[in-house]
């Protein structure tokens, strides 16, 4: 069945230029069917590009239509080149293709992208806000992106991801980037802003700088933008102007950056679990309730513990027994903590590591040690 042709409107050169200014930072892969999403939201043509780090939404002119289409990036490039300065083009979709027409003399036709077009929406997470001139934000984003001069060890420099902290407080917006790990100067840049709330948020500063430095919003040098985020639980920091919004994904450094990976691993294994607001995870593994916590130190560490006895006061006999057990364990340890006997194991946690060998080791120890120690030293089993 052939879908009905749809007219996407008469698109001015300025709108095409605005979309084009984001395109190079995304580079949607045409061979994979990727492209620029074009749809209609609240009666306005709405363009969207997305990657893992950022989602750019550009609001165009008013023109109602019903579909959502993925245009290969070349369509936007072609339209921008075909349309003269201050001109416009007409755009239609029909039969899985898109056509651009300029002054009824030039015409270009392309196939639509084959990936499923999905408009991403964001909402309800702004707690901290800062309003400031776009050019001020663009300038400090550009400066915070600068590398230390003449680095001697690029491997050392790349040891830390290119993340910066954006902080809003008391009439200023600040960007902080650490370089002390390689002996260079940490950097703090700030600009005055109308602020509401206090908080900070970490983003990939290379993406942030790339998008702000390339984009065109309008001709006024004092156009303002709003930066907003939820410092506690927000997934995205938003930068919004009249005709666009950029949403940058939250980034974390060190062990915190592996939190989502840990949760994904538990979910892929169908492990019952829940988290608290401090990043502690409780998981039920092979019938043993466990506590998982990510630790920062020389490297990211996953600490996996199971409490095998509650209400056991310290005694010389118990501590001697635990010491003997520790001297004979491999990889797992057992200790007394706040009158709880705890079995645990710490493991370096990174991209290559699964939590399951550690969970298995702790579960096996917990199952046997709990029963054995309760017989000799009393206390209550978890859940008793």
């Amino acid at each position, binding site marked *: 069945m052939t879908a009905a042709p749809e007219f996407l409107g008469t698109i001015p050169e300025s709108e095409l230029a605005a979309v084009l200014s984001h395109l190079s930072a995304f580079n949607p892969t045409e061979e994979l069917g990727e492209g620029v999403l074009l749809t209609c939201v609240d009666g306005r043509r709405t363009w969207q590009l997305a990657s893992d780090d950022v989602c750019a939404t550009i609001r165009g002119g008013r023109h109602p239509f019903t579909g959502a289409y993925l245009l290969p990036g070349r369509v936007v490039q072609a339209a921008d080149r075909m349309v003269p300065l201050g001109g416009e083009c007409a755009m239609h979709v029909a039969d899985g293709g898109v056509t651009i027409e300029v002054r009824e003399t030039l015409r270009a036709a392309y196939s639509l992208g084959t990936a499923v077009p999905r408009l991403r929406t964001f909402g309800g997470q702004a707690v901290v806000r800062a309003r400031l001139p776009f050019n001020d934000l663009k300038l400090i984003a550009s400066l915070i992106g600068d590398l230390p001069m003449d680095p001697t060890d690029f491997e050392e420099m790349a040891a830390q991801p290119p993340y910066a902290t954006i902080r809003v407080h008391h009439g200023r917006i600040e960007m902080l980037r650490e370089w002390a790990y390689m002996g260079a100067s940490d950097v703090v840049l700030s600009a005055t802003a109308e602020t509401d709330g206090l908080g900070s948020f970490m983003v990939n500063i290379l993406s942030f700088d790339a998008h702000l430095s390339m984009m065109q919003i309008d001709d006024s040098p004092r156009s303002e933008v709003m930066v907003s985020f939820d410092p*506690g*639980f927000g997934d995205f920091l938003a930068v919004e102007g009249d005709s666009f919004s950029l949403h940058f994904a939250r980034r*974390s450094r*060190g*062990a*915190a950056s592996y*939190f*989502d990976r840990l949760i994904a691993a*538990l*979910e892929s294994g169908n*492990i*019952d*679990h*829940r*988290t*608290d*607001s*401090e*990043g*502690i995870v*409780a*998981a*039920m593994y092979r019938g043993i*309730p*466990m*506590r998982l*916590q*990510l*630790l*920062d*130190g*020389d490297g990211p*560490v996953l600490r996996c*513990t199971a*409490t095998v006895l509650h209400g056991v006061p310290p005694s010389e006999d118990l501590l001697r027994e635990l010491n003997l057990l520790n001297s004979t364990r491999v990889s797992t340890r057992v200790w007394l*903590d*706040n009158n*709880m006997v*705890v079995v645990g194991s710490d493991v370096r946690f990174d991209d290559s590591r699964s939590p399951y060998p550690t969970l298995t080791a702790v579960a096996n120890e917990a199952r046997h040690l709990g029963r054995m120690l309760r017989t000799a030293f009393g206390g209550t089993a*978890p*859940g008793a």
Partner: protein
Amino acid sequence: MSAPRHWQVHPITAALRPPSEPRSTGNDDVADQLDRVLQEVHSLPSGYFAARITVDANEAESTDSSESAGV
């Protein structure tokens, strides 16, 4: 006096996500057990070393002053 680098271990503290409901099969007993795990109070790695270093520093200072006083 600060702890050696390999002692400087601390848990992630950023509130990364809102507290989650149990991703569970709907078993109330499992949910209760997971709740209890989250309510347990465990010692933090960094807490012990911070306290230990303070004690060591105080003892060293006390010993130094005793020696200098000829005690």
